[in-house]
């Protein structure tokens, strides 16, 4: 397929979609507070960006997302390693983890605001909570998936369990861990936004809430646009890291070629 032509076609498709939206809203006279025209959304986006309001709130959301992601993934990876490598650990702790996992973590957000206040820390905890499980589950699966033959090879070389972990199980678990990070990144953003919904002084989630109260729907649309771009960028960051770390993984190569 011709690449330049495809890019051209997708630009035309985008313009067509936006035009249909704009025209539909105008012709059908849809009220602003139900569905704003794209031009109104663009206007709100421009206003928010130029005044610096969006940037300021974006900063708070980004900080809580990234810190929550780091905290949650580190904990998930650590606990996952414990569960995968220690029978005792698994036996005594795993039931609680499973119980906690089936709980919708978002439902804890109000409690966390009570415990950690209206500032950044409650958002970070919230983001960490939702980012935790994808890492936990994937780490366990990854560490347990080491090929029996490879373990036997290591044993035949008189390798210690520690060596088997560092030289075999850990690198072998990396594709799983990276897939977990992929999910955890987006989950962390969700966690941070929900935290900001429930109670915050800053952040894009809090901005959406306040815009909702003032029926500023075009403003909300513009924030949603920012959020989806942020999500996309965060996701790309993880993908870049993954490509670098997993250069040897055949499934990764298929993705690159695709």
């Amino acid at each position, binding site marked *: 397929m011709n690449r330049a032509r495809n890019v051209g076609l997708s630009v035309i498709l985008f313009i067509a979609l936006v035009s249909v939206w704009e025209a539909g809203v105008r012709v059908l006279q849809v009220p602003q507070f139900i569905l704003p025209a794209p031009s109104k959304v663009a206007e709100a986006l421009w206003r928010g960006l130029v005044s610096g309001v969006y940037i300021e709130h974006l900063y708070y959301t980004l900080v809580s997302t990234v810190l929550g992601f780091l905290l949650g993934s580190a904990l998930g990876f650590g606990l996952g390693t414990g569960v995968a490598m220690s029978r005792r650990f698994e036996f005594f702790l795993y039931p609680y983890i499973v119980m906690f996992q089936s709980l919708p973590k978002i439902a804890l957000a109000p409690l966390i605001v009570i415990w950690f206040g209206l500032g950044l820390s409650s958002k970070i905890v919230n983001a960490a909570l939702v980012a935790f499980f994808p890492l936990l589950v994937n780490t366990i699966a990854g560490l347990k998936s080491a090929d029996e*033959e490879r373990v*036997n*090879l290591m044993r035949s*070389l*008189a390798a210690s369990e520690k060596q088997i972990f560092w*030289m*075999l199980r850990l690198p072998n678990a990396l594709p799983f861990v990276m897939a977990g990070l992929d999910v955890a990144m987006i989950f962390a953003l969700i966690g941070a936004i929900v935290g900001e919904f429930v109670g915050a002084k800053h952040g894009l989630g809090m901005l959406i809430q306040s815009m909702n109260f003032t029926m500023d729907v075009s403003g909300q649309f513009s924030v949603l646009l920012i959020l989806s771009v942020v999500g996309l960028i965060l996701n790309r960051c993880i993908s870049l890291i993954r490509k670098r770390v997993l250069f*040897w*993984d055949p499934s990764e190569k298929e993705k690159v070629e695709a």
Partner: protein
Amino acid sequence: MSSSVIAVNALTKRYAARTGTVSALLPATAGEARLRGTAIAGPRKDIGVVFQAPVLFPWRSVLDNVLLPIDVQGLGRDGHRQDAMDLLNLVGLQGFEGRYPWELSGGMQQRVAITRALVHDPALLLMDEPFGALDAMTRELMNVELQRIWMEKKKTVLFITHSIPEAVFLADRVLVMTPRPGKILEDVRVKSARPRSLDIMNTPEFGEHVRRIRAHFNVKGGIDA
């Protein structure tokens, strides 16, 4: 220990268990295996193992895969990098040291596995159906290659196979084993001069050895009864 090639011709499906025993991955059910005067009680550093699959680590380059035993046994990479390169030359993989396993064919991957089994200079090379997963042509080629490597290194090889011609072609001694309990049924000495070419498979002595070993299987009413 004198250098020789022993091919154990396995009648049983439990071949893996048997190499397992010798390499002490599994405890022996009876008796004792001794290597260089000491009983094999656990995994040993002076044994190199080649499995049916190459069992390479995809995140390691060819050279790093070969150096795995050096890393595990803490022998120091610096002192062994040249040995590894020499061995890679010996198996015909010069120039591939920086490649990754997915870039190699099955035969090349198995050569890497053989190199890895030799790099720490073990006293005994255990090969558990190493060419079983290769196509027939590559397999014959690898047999000739293994003989060439053996003539260079002169290590005792315990080679387990289900292929009678492979056993007779490679071995100085062919031990025919029975299924459950695994007992040695016959010890056939193959005296053909080395290097043997694939042509010896057409000689009457070769055919006689093969016929004689195969007779054991026919008595049992089929392979792997």
